[in-house]
């Protein structure tokens, strides 16, 4: 069914300032799927997301949305960047900011209508941000800010939402809330999500598929297909073990006695 997927990444190579960052990237995302883009810091996750947004050129290969080449400002793809620093004094309320998600790219003064007001209210409610809708964007906590950024991205009704490390810098409780929120976005609004993270465990209950980035290459499939010693060893280019402990997954270097013991993911902490 070539070309019918929501997003198709086909044999993509990416270079940054002449250095090859990603090689032969292939994966697909279908409507209403929750996909985790997993890899350690510096693996190329942000670069890959920028390719999907049309902000980064590829050396080879193509990115198709509904079978057509991806263009900049494609309204079917929404984006939540990694770090947005709002100044405290900025005279913009949460609802003003979400409204800019509808028409912030259009010229002219903001035209208010019942339609856009309703849309903003509905979106604020769906991310549970109604209680702070009239506060300044610079006054929000990390978790509140993520909700607002998600509402800003969703209000234009994209079919695919890309999020760059939305769980970084959040305490575990807030991170869990954001994951549940995103899960409901997938199930209720039928929006596909591609979320990058260096830690896959919090996502295991909600992830339909995983795109695993390491060593400049990518493996994709269901979590069970990808998070296997053979697959990840081939990806990393040396032996790794996959340990499953109490429903959590640990990816550690095999005991070959040299080099770093930890190659990916997180410290091997045994939990609960």
């Amino acid at each position: 069914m070539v070309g019918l997927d929501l997003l198709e990444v086909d044999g993509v190579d990416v270079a940054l300032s002449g250095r090859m960052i990603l090689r032969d990237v292939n994966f697909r995302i279908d409507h209403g799927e929750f996909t985790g883009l997993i890899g350690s810091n510096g693996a190329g996750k942000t670069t890959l997301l920028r390719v999907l947004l049309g902000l980064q050129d590829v050396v080879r290969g193509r990115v198709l949305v509904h079978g057509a080449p991806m263009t900049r400002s494609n309204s079917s793809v929404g984006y939540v960047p990694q770090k947005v620093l709002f100044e405290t004094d900025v005279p913009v309320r949460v609802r003003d900011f979400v409204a800019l998600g509808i028409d912030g790219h259009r010229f002219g003064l903001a035209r208010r209508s019942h339609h856009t007001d309703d849309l903003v209210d509905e979106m604020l409610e769906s991310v549970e941000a109604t209680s702070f809708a009239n506060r300044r964007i610079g006054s929000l906590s990390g978790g509140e800010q993520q909700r607002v950024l998600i509402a800003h991205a969703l209000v234009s009704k994209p079919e695919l939402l890309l999020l760059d490390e939305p769980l970084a810098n959040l305490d575990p409780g807030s991170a869990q809330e954001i994951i549940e929120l995103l899960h409901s976005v997938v199930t209720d609004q039928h929006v596909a999500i591609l979320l990058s993270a260096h830690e896959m465990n919090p996502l295991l209950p909600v992830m339909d598929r995983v795109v695993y980035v390491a060593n400049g290459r990518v493996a994709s499939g269901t979590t069970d297909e990808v998070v296997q010693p053979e697959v990840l060893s081939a990806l990393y280019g040396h032996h790794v073990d996959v340990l499953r402990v109490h429903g959590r997954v640990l990816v550690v270097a095999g005991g070959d006695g040299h080099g770093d013991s930890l190659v990916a993911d997180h410290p091997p902490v045994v939990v609960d």
Partner: protein
Amino acid sequence: MFSSFMTNAWLSGTIIALLAGSVGFFVVLRGSAFAAHAIPNGAFAGAAGANLIGVNPLVGLVVFALGAAFGISALSRRTRSDVATALALVMMLALGAAFLATSNAYEPAVNALLFGEILGVSSSELLPVALLAVVCVLGLSTLYRPLLLSSISPELAVAKGVNVRVIDVAFLVVVALSSALAVPVVGALLTFSLMVGPPAAARIVTSRPLRALALSVVFSVITLWEAVASSYWTNLPIGFFVGTMSAGVYLVARGWSLAQSRRPRGALA
């Protein structure tokens, strides 16, 4: 103070204040105060240059302010924007110094250029000043939404398909034209205070963007009227009053907001 020869001062001053207040809203939002300082100095060099070769000063003001704006945006692509702005600033000041030295301008004329002159716009210049101001206001209203979004977060604007570089240059052009109009009245050194003090005060008072813009315009007009009146009565340069009043408005707003936050209120998250 309201005699016929002062009519020009009030009219031109009001136009300039309306413009500086609206442009300033974005200057503060984008953190472009340094560029708003550098560009009027470009305009200053232009006025000095025009004086030297006997051209209408408004032409020199506009051409050099635009030159400073394009210079800043071109250099900013290669280097940090504060460094680019500083380079444009020193270049323009140096040119201005050379032009003044060569032209044997009277000292009062130099002072007027640097620190302002309430009669800086002659009646024959009033029409072009008003027309350029209208162009600037139309430009700002056209740019409003993408400019607001890219000022809050360039990355989000880019993701929505906004050409941030074009918006940047277009905005600097508006700053340049506004500066060219303001410099003859407020003075090159203090024009940016009108683009910083009132909008900075406005955004403390209100959290809504359009309201903050409107309030910035109101504060700016009050500042300029006060400055014209005080300068008329005291014979001190108008720049002095614009500068102190701009900072004063900001301090009053800060104090007001401090008083508000001390007052016990419910539903504070």
